[in-house]
C-alpha cells in the first residue's frame, strides 16, 4: 500500500522556475499511477479558465509519453492553446506501480482513467475533453458516460472491431503487410545480406516465416482465382458492441467526436468496413468529424505524422471551444 503526495502548483510556484508539467501520483485501486498535469501558458478565457483535456495513450509499452513523446508534445501544445492537459501511465506501465500481462481492447483500463479524471478534478480542472489513442480510445469510450459536461471526444486510430486473440491479431497484421509489399520487392529485399542476418535471429524468424507463408498463400490465390478461402482464412472481425454503444451514448448527449485515422492504419480499414453501420447512429452525420491523415497514425511511425496528429487534435479541440455553434449549425 502506498501513501501519496502530489507535487503541486503551490510548491512549484514557490520555485524560481515556472513549471508547466507537474508530475503527480494518484491511486487507482491498489496501485499508484504517475500522471502529468500540463498547465496552460494563459487560460483560454477568464470566465472558464479550467477547461481540461484528459489524454489516454495507447497500449503496449510506450507509457503516457507515446512514441517520440507525441503525447507530451500534444499536452504542451494544448497548454500553449490555453488548455489544461493531463496524461498518465496506466498501471504496470512507465513509472506507475503494478504489473501488466496484456492490453486487450475488450478490457479498457476504466479504473485508471476514472482515477486520473478524479485526480485532475482535485486539482481544480474538469475533464471536458477526452482524447484517446487506440487502446486509450477504447478507455475513453468506456468512461465518457461518467464525465459531466463533456464537450468533445477525440478518438485516434481506435479500432471499431475486436480482435479475436493476440495470435490471430498478429496473423492478420502479417497478412496485411504481405498484401502491401509486392513479391518482387520482397524477393529483392529478402536476399540482401543484412536481411539474411535478420532472418537468422530467432525472434525475427517467426515474423518472416509468417510473412512468407502469407505472401505465398496470396500469390497462390491470384493464380487460381477466384481465391478460395484456405484453412487459415479468417472471418471478418466482429464490430465491437462496446465501441458502437459508447459512441452512440456520446452522440446522444450531443457531444462532438473527431475520428482520426491514418491511411495506412489497420483500424482505418476496419472503420471503412464498419462505417455504414456507424452512420446509422443518431447524430453521427451532425456530430462526427472524420479525418484521415496520410500515413501510419496508429503506430506514429513517422515524425511528420506525429506533428500532423498533434496539430489536428489541437485545432479541433480549439475549434470546439471557440466555435461551439459549429455543430449546432449542422444539426
Amino acid at each position, binding site marked *: 500500500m502506498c501513501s501519496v*503526495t502530489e507535487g503541486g502548483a503551490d510548491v512549484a510556484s514557490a*520555485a524560481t*522556475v515556472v513549471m508547466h508539467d507537474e*508530475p503527480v501520483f494518484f491511486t487507482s485501486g491498489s496501485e499508484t499511477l504517475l500522471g502529468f498535469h500540463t498547465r496552460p501558458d494563459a487560460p483560454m478565457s477568464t470566465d472558464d479558465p479550467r477547461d481540461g483535456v484528459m489524454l489516454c495513450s495507447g497500449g503496449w509499452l510506450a507509457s503516457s509519453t507515446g512514441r517520440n513523446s507525441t503525447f*507530451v508534445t500534444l499536452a504542451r501544445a494544448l497548454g500553449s492553446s490555453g488548455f489544461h492537459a493531463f496524461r498518465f501511465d496506466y498501471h504496470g506501465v512507465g513509472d506507475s506501480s503494478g504489473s501488466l500481462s496484456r492490453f486487450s481492447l475488450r478490457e479498457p483500463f476504466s479504473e485508471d482513467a476514472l482515477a486520473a479524471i478524479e485526480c485532475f478534478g482535485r486539482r481544480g480542472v474538469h475533464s471536458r475533453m477526452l482524447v484517446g489513442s487506440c487502446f486509450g480510445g477504447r478507455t475513453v469510450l468506456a468512461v465518457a458516460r461518467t464525465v459531466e459536461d463533456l464537450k468533445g471526444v477525440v478518438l485516434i486510430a481506435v479500432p471499431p472491431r475486436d480482435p479475436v486473440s493476440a495470435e490471430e491479431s498478429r496473423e492478420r497484421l502479417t497478412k496485411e503487410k504481405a498484401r*502491401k509489399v509486392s513479391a518482387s520487392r520482397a524477393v529483392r529485399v529478402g536476399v540482401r545480406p543484412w536481411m539474411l542476418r535478420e532472418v537468422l535471429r530467432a525472434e*525475427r524468424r517467426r515474423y518472416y516465416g509468417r510473412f512468407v507463408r502469407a505472401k505465398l498463400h496470396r500469390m497462390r490465390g491470384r493464380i487460381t482465382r477466384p481465391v478460395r478461402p484456405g484453412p487459415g482464412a479468417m472471418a471478418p472481425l466482429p464490430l465491437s458492441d462496446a465501441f458502437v454503444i459508447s459512441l452512440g451514448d456520446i452522440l446522444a448527449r450531443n457531444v462532438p467526436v473527431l475520428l482520426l485515422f491514418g491511411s495506412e492504419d489497420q483500424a482505418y480499414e476496419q472503420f471503412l468496413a464498419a462505417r455504414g453501420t456507424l452512420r446509422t447512429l443518431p447524430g453521427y452525420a451532425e456530430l462526427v468529424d472524420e479525418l484521415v491523415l496520410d500515413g501510419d497514425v496508429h503506430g506514429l*511511425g513517422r515524425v511528420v505524422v506525429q506533428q500532423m496528429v498533434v496539430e489536428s487534435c489541437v485545432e479541433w479541440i480549439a475549434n470546439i471551444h471557440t466555435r461551439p455553434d459549429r455543430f449546432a449549425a449542422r444539426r
Partner: protein
Amino acid sequence: VQLTSEGRSARATSRDASTLEASDATGPLAGWAQRRTEGSLEAAGFVGAPGNRVFAFAHVPSRRIRGSVLVCPPLLAETLVTYRGDRQLAGSLAQRGIAVMRFHHRGSGNSEGSPQLYSLDDLVEDALVACQKLSDISGRPADVVIGTRLGATVAAVVARRLRIPRIALIAPVLDPKKYLREVFRGHLISEMKTRTTRLSVGDLERSLDEHGWVDIVGYPIGRELFRSVSNFSVTEALARPIRSVLLVHMGKGPREHAAVDALSRELTDKGMQCSAASLPVSLAWWFGGGGFTRAENEAAATGVIDLVQTWLDGDVLGD
C-alpha cells in the same frame, strides 16, 4: 566530512527517506511528487535549465542510505525496451539501501528539448545534472553509474568526469558506426513492412547531412548526435579513476560476445577490476512491435537485476 575509499569527500550523513520527507518544503525533493512504497520513497520531478529540463525519478531507501547509483537510459526507441527493467532495478536497489536516480534525456520521454538538436555532450550534461540531484538527495557523491546501450557511452564519460569509481555497462555500444548502421537498417526493415521504400542506408546518411536530422521509425536522430557518437570510443573513455567495471553482453551472436571479452581483457590490462557476463537474450531494440516479445524483455531485465545486485553486493558495496 569523511573520505570514501576512493579518496573523494563525502558528507557524513544518516540520510534516509524519512529525513528527506521531513525536510520536504526546503529539502532536495521540494516540489517533487512523492509516493511511499514498501522499503523506499519514490519521487518524480524536473532538474536542469528551462527549455532543457530533464525529468528525473528518484528511489530513496527507507533505511540508511549506503550507496547511490545513477542510471543512464538508452536513447530513442530503445528506451521502450529497457524502461520497466530499469525501474525494477532501481526499486530492488532501493530495497537494499541504495539511492537510485533515473532520468529521461532531453528531447525524450517527459523531458524538454528537441531531440534533433542534441549531441553527446548534451546527453552527458543531462546525466551530470541528474547526478548532482542524486548527490543532493543521498547526501553523498554517486558511487556507481549504470548505462545501457548509448547510455553506457554517456555513463563512461560521466564516471570519468565525476571520478565515479564503478560503472556497469549493459549491452554497451562498442562500435558506434556499426550501431548507427544497424539503427538505419532497422528503419529500412520497418519501412519495408509498411511501404515499398527504395531507400538505402547511404540515402539515410545523405539525408542526415542534408537536412540535419533523419526520421528513424518515428524518432529523429540529429546530425550532431550522429557525428559526436560516431567518433567516440567507449573503450578509451574507460580509464582510471574508474576502478571496477561490470560488462554485460546481451545476445547470441559470437562476434559481439568476442568484442565484450576483448574489452574486458583490455580493461583488466589497464588495471581495472572487470566482471564480464553474458545474457543469452536477443532483444529487438529498434523494431516497434514486430519482433518484440515481452518474455525476452522480462528475461533481460531479470538477468540484469541479478547481475548488478551480485556485483554490488559481493564486490562493491558489500558490508
